[in-house]
């Protein structure tokens, strides 16, 4: 459990990445919808 | 309502009898799928005995799902589905006779043979007598569930290109309780414990499915053909 850091920060990192990716895809869809 | 039910059931059984090879395909798939597991896992009898209930049940589930894609598709292609729907009446519940007849036909052609053939695989997996009996009983209770839910999937995906894979994705999660209670009952019997709870839950799930799936299937047919 001493190297929990990888798992803890990995979790928060995955969260930010997923939210970020979803927003990116959404922005792309928004741009295409307005075109 | 018994008029169209009997007529459609008889018609489907006659069609299945004419294309006997097609009707036997699910059994063939069932056999092949089950036989793969010892090849993948190893022939050790103890292991096989342990995984047997799950393996047989999963193979039954997949065989049912693969065979159910054609449930309405053939009638859609030659226009008879349209006729049957119009003839039954305008309301959703008028179509229950058609839905139940289709599910019953599917079970008689696919589910019942699985129930009859399954004990052979029980022997191949070195299962005890009581466990084999339990396997047949749980499949007898569970395969109607698969036919009913499969019919819902077939109606939802009517005419779509994606075919069996989409149907499996949609319907298999809904079948999971049957899988858990059914395979669990056999495992319990094999371990010498009582499976009464499993049987009760499986029976209850069958009743629930029999009440909910047909109206939902009728609604799905309306959605797909309007």
């Amino acid at each position, binding site marked *: *459990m001493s*190297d*929990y850091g990888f*798992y*803890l920060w*990995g*979790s*928060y990192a*995955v*969260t930010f990445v*997923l*939210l970020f990716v*979803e*927003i990116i895809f*959404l922005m792309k*869809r*928004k741009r295409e*919808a*307005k075109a | 309502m018994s008029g169209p039910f009997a007529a459609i059931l008889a018609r489907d059984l006659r069609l299945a009898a004419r294309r006997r090879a097609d009707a036997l395909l699910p059994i063939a798939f069932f056999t092949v799928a089950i036989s793969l597991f010892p090849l993948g896992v190893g022939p050790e009898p103890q292991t096989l005995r342990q995984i047997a209930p799950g393996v047989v049940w999963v193979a039954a589930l997949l065989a049912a799902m693969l065979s159910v894609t054609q449930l309405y598709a053939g009638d859609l292609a030659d226009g008879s589905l349209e006729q049957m729907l119009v003839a039954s009446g305008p309301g959703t519940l008028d179509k229950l006779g058609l839905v139940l007849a289709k599910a019953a036909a599917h079970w008689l052609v696919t589910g019942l043979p699985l129930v009859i053939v399954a004990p052979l695989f029980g022997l191949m997996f070195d299962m005890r007598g009581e466990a084999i009996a339990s396997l047949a009983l749980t499949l007898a209770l569970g395969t109607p569930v698969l036919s009913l839910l499969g019919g*819902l999937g077939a109606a*939802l*995906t009517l005419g*779509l*290109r*994606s075919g069996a894979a*989409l149907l499996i*994705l*949609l319907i*298999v*999660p*809904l079948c*999971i*309780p049957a899988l*858990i*209670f059914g395979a*669990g009952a056999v495992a*319990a019997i094999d371990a010498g414990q009582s499976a009464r709870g499993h049987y009760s*839950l499986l029976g209850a*799930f069958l009743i*629930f499915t029999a009440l*909910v799936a047909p109206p*939902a299937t009728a*609604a*799905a047919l309306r*959605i*797909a053909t*309007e």
Partner: protein
Amino acid sequence: MSSSSFRLFQFAAPARFYGLAGALIPWCWAAFAVLAAIGLWMGLFVAPTDATQGDAYRIIFIHVPAAWMSMLLYLVMAFWAAIGWAFNARLASMTARAIAPTGAMFTFLALWTGALWGRPTWGTWWVWDARLTSELILLFLYAGFLSLVSAIDDPRRADRAGALLAIVGAVNIPIIHYSVVWWNTLHQGASVSVTKGASMQSQMLAAMLLMALAFWMYSIAVTLVRVRCIIREREG
């Protein structure tokens, strides 16, 4: 019907809703940012170290809110899909379809963080406990909905078929969950649970609730943006 409810029904028209949604979106983003900042600060710095799990338990501030959202969003999605089907309301159906991808994302996040939590605390990357297994099945339900609506070309047929599937799924979720719990308690070998072992203290609970609210604001913001996209795509 009072005049205020009549005014509200005006927004059931997609064109009208478009403007309303556009006005709401910035506020939702702002609320998300604030709630997430406070929630993260509380979770990472204020909440005390757990007696049994040390600091590894802090994954809970993502895992549990994500799991809550995954289930809440499915129910909300099924609700709007049902409204869209029953009242032939296009906007409600569009809203349901806008929610689905985000719900699936949170389900995946709950599973991923569940695995990352399981590894340091229980030694395995995956634990077939009732909670995680149910989340996995929920992911299949989302995948089924998304696959079905994208496989149907006619938008209204897709809306209605999706609504039926979502309702059937929502009705089955308690049954599936119960059967998974039953299954889990029988096989004692897998009696470990990722969520047990961390006793809740008030600051932990507060941080979890704040993160849940933050995710909720995020979901609303993203859903509104997506609904606007769908309105543009379908109605021009």
